[in-house]
């Protein structure tokens, strides 16, 4: 072992110098060749960050209807006491853990869209998540709504980072027909570590595009392409974002780390239009309070740090954050101090470009669908608003229909 290790280290030292020089050349060459980089802030410079609150966030304990006695009747152990609610008005208010978000709300940077859902709600985590990501409640689509945006937005084809999922798995929302979106959970580990990798890269650059394989596989071309993108992307991204410096203090949570990287990518002007992160799990069938309170607090604190960071770099008006969760939860609590899968729930649109306030209808707890909140705003109205008013793209084709827009964006 010792001998091998030593030799490995020696070789790594010997080769990594060469590799770095080669990489720098590559990056410089791309920069000089005029890889289009966005200029001054403006519509072309805008970014959407999508946050998936996965598992089904209980909307009623997130945006609390503290003025409604029915809420307290149906939630004998789980209801947030009226005195704890961070009141927006006499009817609703934020969960007490969401102090940072309330501060932003008071500054007019948070839009709360209530009662968002879709017709014939599905109660499966997986199908409902798919519906939210593909924006297709009635059909099965293999592309996501933001993936379809990436396909038709006319973004530079040679940019590997038009969209970035700050996650390990590529979410369906970023699946497109033409654009490969890298999934990068963290810059640590996003890089080839060994001299052998460098050797392989040199040796196999030609092989990944060679189609002379003596077998067919539905995944072969995909493997070759991702291998190529992973090798180039992991060489380039750390260098492209290295110049971004920040004094922001993010919470030491997974979401805090993800948003720190999202701010770095958004602030490095590398042409990224769409970012994705996820947070959870909100699937609180049992002992909901401790879990959801923690998750909402982490969400709120991380968002606060994220927008401080963005604002310090003049990016807070460039980055719109949109949250979603596959469903809200049952209005009445179950026997294990938790809640089962429900239907409509609120979502947030956050950022300097937002006209803050309450949108949509407050949940009606007496007119329910089998004990679930009925939706009053179609989720595709929110998407249409983001596409048309934020990204400046027509939404009809992407969403397979015309949906009314909300006056949420300045």
């Amino acid at each position, binding site marked *: 072992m010792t001998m*091998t290790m030593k*030799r490995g280290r020696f*070789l790594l030292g*010997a*080769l990594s110098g060469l590799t770095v020089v080669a990489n720098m050349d590559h990056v410089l060459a791309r920069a000089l060749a005029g890889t289009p980089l966005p200029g001054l802030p403006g519509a072309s410079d805008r970014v959407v960050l999508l946050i998936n609150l996965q598992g089904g966030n209980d909307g009623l304990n997130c945006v609390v209807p503290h003025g409604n006695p029915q809420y307290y009747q149906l939630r004998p152990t789980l209801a947030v006491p009226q005195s704890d609610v961070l009141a927006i008005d006499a009817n609703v208010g934020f969960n007490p853990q969401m102090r940072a978000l309330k501060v932003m709300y008071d500054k007019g940077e948070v839009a709360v869209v209530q009662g968002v859902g879709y017709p014939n709600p599905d*109660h*499966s*985590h*997986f*199908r409902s998540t798919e519906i939210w990501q593909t924006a297709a409640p009635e059909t099965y689509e*293999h592309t996501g709504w933001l993936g379809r945006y990436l396909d038709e937005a006319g973004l530079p084809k040679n940019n590997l980072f038009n969209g970035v999922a700050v996650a*390990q*798995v590529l979410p*369906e929302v970023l*699946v*497109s027909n033409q654009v*490969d*979106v*890298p999934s990068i*959970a963290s810059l640590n*580990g*996003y*890089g*080839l570590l*060994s001299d*052998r*990798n460098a*050797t*392989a890269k040199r*040796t*196999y650059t*030609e*092989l*990944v595009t*060679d189609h*002379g*394989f*003596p*077998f*067919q*596989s*539905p*995944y*072969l071309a*995909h*493997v070759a*392409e*991702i291998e190529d993108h*992973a090798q180039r992307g992991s060489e380039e991204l750390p260098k492209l974002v290295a110049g971004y410096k920040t004094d922001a203090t993010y919470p030491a949570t997974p979401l805090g780390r993800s948003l720190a990287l999202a701010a770095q990518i958004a602030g490095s002007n590398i042409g990224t239009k769409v970012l994705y992160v996820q947070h959870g*799990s909100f*699937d609180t*069938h*049992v002992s909901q309070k401790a879990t959801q309170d923690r998750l909402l607090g982490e969400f709120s604190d991380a968002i606060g740090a994220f927008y401080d960071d963005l604002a310090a770099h003049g990016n807070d008006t460039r980055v719109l954050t949109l949250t979603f969760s596959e469903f809200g939860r049952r209005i009445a*609590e*179950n*026997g*294990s101090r*938790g809640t*089962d*899968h429900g239907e409509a729930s609120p979502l947030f649109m956050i950022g300097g470009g937002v006209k803050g306030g309450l949108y949509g209808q407050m949940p009606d707890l007496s007119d329910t669908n089998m004990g679930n909140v009925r939706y009053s705003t179609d989720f595709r109205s929110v998407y249409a608003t983001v596409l048309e008013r934020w990204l400046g793209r027509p939404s009809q084709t992407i969403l397979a229909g015309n949906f009314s827009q909300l006056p949420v964006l300045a």
Partner: protein
Amino acid sequence: MAAGYVRPAGQLDFTTALSPYAGPWNDRLAAHLMRRAGFGATPDEVARYGAMSPHDAAEALIHFPDTSRLAPPPGVMAYPDPRRIAFKGMDDMQKRDAARARRKEAIGDILALQEWWLNRMLTTPAPLQEKMTFFLHGHFTTAAIQKGVWPNLVLAQNQLFRQNALGNLHDLTIAVSKDPAMLLYLDNAENNKSHPNENYSRELMELFTLGLGSYTEEDVRQSARAFTGWTIDRRTGEFTFNPRTHDDGTKTFLSRTGNFDGTDIVDIIYQQRACERFWAKSLLSAFVYNDPEPELVDEFANVISRNHFELAPSMSVLLRSNVFYSQRAYRALVKSPVEFVVGAHKSLDLATIVEGTPQALRAMGQILFYPPNVAGWPGGANWLTSQMLIARENFIARIVNAQTATQSSWLAAVPLDAKRASREFIAAILQNDAPSQAYVQLIAYLDGAGTSALGALSVENYDERARGAAYLTMAMPAYQLG
């Protein structure tokens, strides 16, 4: 770009798809069988199975030898935790510290279990038993530590899957419904008649047995009532039925009415055609190719039905079938990280799992006993993101440096001739599934191109070059495909 599952192109003859394969048999097909019915094979194992007939090879995997002499699992922390009682009299700070220490110990136990299982996958004489255990772990998911799923319950569930690896799916579903780890993970331990908890009821149907579209929301609620009172004894950590919290009223479930309990629900589920088709699709997707045609699913559902949900005879049909050995199925799956890492050990003929492998699996997106959610790990192209692929390449860069790599019988015997050596590497590791250009590149590498020490392959540089060549061969696209 594309994510998810992709079906192979072209047409399949459904009438003969599940008939026994009677075509030519060779090492390449034997290696295919071992990737699917196991975790890959060493060159020696490929040769051994290649010398059998396809029928005998499948039968040897299904009627596997006794595995009781394999290394026993490590001792792990028990539920209920005896130190729970010691919490009494502590202040909040002490309790928090004690809880943290307990959690840390549990995480260490899970790591030990991961190493134990990976070594078992590598060394077992019954690879299909471990492969089915792995399949069932991804199917009937349970994640460790959260919700009180302590290491001994994780181990007990893992042994349940192993005991039923080729057993009866109906019986296994009842056993899973009473399994303490599952009762905690999907909250049925908390399911009581005053306010039923629907979590297990829903996932039992959606993800374990029927699939979406075969039941209604009302069925979910009725089935949840039937499972009330199926809980665990908090003193022993074992399954118990609590008649006081069980709802013994009349339920209507999938158009049947009666005073059902959990066993009745499972019985009714297993009378549904949808259940046969669900298992057929799951097994075809895992062992043959993703997104199988509805007609093929129907054919295999008939096999499962005729065999009354017995896995051994059903898998015997599948692993000997025309479709299994068709061009459509060959290299048509993406290896999961676990298949990838255990297979890499097999390719290099390593006797034990290299230190740090569980941690490397985390970077590739698959942590044993920690599926990301109740649906298990998403497969197909979901395994092929930029960062996960880099993690795979970094792993093989490490494993070829393992001290034991060149002790392997076949690596030590590779000739000191770049041309012949390149053929041996590509044959042993890839069963020749490489384009002609790959041989050219490998010969150039073995003769000194791209290395720090130039010069033709020789006794002096053999060790380093052989490791490098093994790396390069495993870095080829075909090696990602199962």
